[in-house]
């Protein structure tokens, strides 16, 4: 009996020790420049590298509206090592915020999208007038991923060298205002906006003309285990934008055409432009796991 209790006690102690070790491992902290990669799924053996890119400025011309980026948006997650010239599979950020929601003001606000007297439906016209009377005329636009984070494709070589397409993303733009409701979008998961961002020169269909991005400058951090690209300008002006959908909730059949017409949507390829100014950091899962172990 005593020996059985002894074995049980030893097993419990061993289990406790293992739990402690695991807890220690789970609570390991990244330090210094590595902390920005905290949301990268670097413990996933399929993930070889991590990306943290903050868009701090730039403009997006969508149809007839040009939005200036004033609120930083972060793209983060993991990706795989691939052979030269190929695009890597992307892995979502651990907290689910692969692309952070950063609302940007639409110039002209609601007045630039909707004219209340022009709305024939009485209820909607009243709602429109109420919105204006209450000063709720600001409209924000927020970029969101259309579909899965796995749909993002990154070409690390092109990112590092500043040539060719660097980042492919399927997006939709959410337009936010009480009148427009909570699901007013340009683009859907099934019909997204496709961006193929690059830091060299684009080749858009007319009327757009080629524009050139900037590959940025490279700095090595954390004993050269983190690569920072400053001043990276990613551009694409060869994409198309569909019409709006879901604007005004149940009245979307009325508001969608109005908002689309005021925004110049749908807008064919060659009429839209994205210019994103970024600070990009990349590192490896190896370096992150090493940093984890160095700081239990």
């Amino acid at each position, binding site marked *: 009996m005593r020996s059985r209790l002894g074995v049980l006690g030893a097993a419990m102690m061993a289990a406790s020790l293992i739990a402690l070790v695991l807890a220690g491992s789970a609570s390991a902290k990244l330090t210094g420049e590595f902390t920005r990669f905290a949301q990268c799924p670097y413990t996933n053996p399929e993930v070889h590298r991590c990306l943290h890119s903050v868009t701090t400025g730039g403009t997006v011309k969508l149809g007839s509206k040009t939005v200036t980026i004033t609120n930083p948006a972060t793209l983060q997650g993991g990706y795989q090592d691939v052979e030269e010239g190929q695009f890597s599979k992307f892995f979502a950020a651990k907290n689910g915020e692969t692309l952070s929601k950063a609302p940007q003001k639409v110039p002209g606000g609601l007045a630039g999208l909707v004219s209340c007297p022009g709305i024939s439906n009485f209820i909607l016209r009243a709602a429109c007038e109420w919105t204006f009377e209450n000063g709720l005329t600001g409209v924000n636009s927020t970029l969101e991923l259309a579909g899965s984070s796995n749909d993002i494709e990154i070409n690390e070589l092109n990112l590092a060298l500043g*040539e060719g397409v660097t980042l492919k993303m399927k997006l939709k733009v959410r337009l936010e205002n009480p009148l427009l409701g909570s699901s007013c979008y340009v683009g859907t998961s099934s019909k997204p906006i496709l961006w193929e961002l690059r830091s060299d020169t684009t080749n858009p269909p007319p009327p757009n003309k080629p524009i050139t991005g900037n590959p940025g400058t490279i700095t*090595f951090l954390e*004993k050269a285990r983190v690569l920072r690209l400053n001043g990276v300008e990613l551009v694409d002006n060869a994409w198309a934008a569909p019409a709006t959908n879901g604007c005004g909730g149940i009245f979307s059949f009325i508001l969608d055409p109005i908002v689309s017409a005021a925004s110049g949507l749908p807008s064919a390829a060659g009429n839209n432009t994205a210019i994103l100014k970024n600070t990009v950091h990349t590192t*490896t899962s*190896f370096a992150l796991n090493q940093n984890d172990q160095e700081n239990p």
Partner: protein
Amino acid sequence: MSRRKWGPRAFFSCLLVVLALTMLTTASANAEGNWRIEGKNISESTTITGQGEGVYAFLVPSRNVELVFQSFAMDEGFLLPNGTSYKVFLFTEGKVYTLSPALEEISSCKVGNLTFKVKGELVLHNGITYELLSPAEGTLLTTTTYSSGTGCPLPKTVPIPGSLVLEDPGGLQSEAVSHLVEQTPGGLFPGHGMLFGTHPMELDGSFSLELTGEHKGQKWSGVG
């Protein structure tokens, strides 16, 4: 009146002919370039070997990296008639450094050996003979590879397209047993030069070239 009209036309026609003749002469001068051994043009393939002199630094300022190789070898080399050549360079024992803010080794990155398989062509420019090296096949001079799984933040591979112009500061056209050659900074014309992907890359380092085989120890030169 008609004479006045014809005067400038005739002048420009003559000028065009002169220019065309000059271009043809230049082209034929390049085509007539040849390797010489003991003052005589070679008429058949001749073997050549290369010896390293110090270290070799491939600098890429715009990407803030420098690849430094401790060792160089040219195991295979041929001087061919008509001023052409075929050479295989091998750079080994490489390390990667940052250039800014300080020259510092990126210990997490191991760079693989670089093999250049190039074809050469003698070029006469401003009275000086150079050798223009371009990829023997395809568009790449070589490809740099970096260790993965060691924390190296550089991409796994970076292609090196472009061309390389070699010069002998002592004169490639002067007869010598050994020619110490190095990369001509900036190449000769726009479009010349090695690229790290799309970024200019310069080679800092020199190596000596000597005849081997039946012509070992003999003086040789290249005249563009």
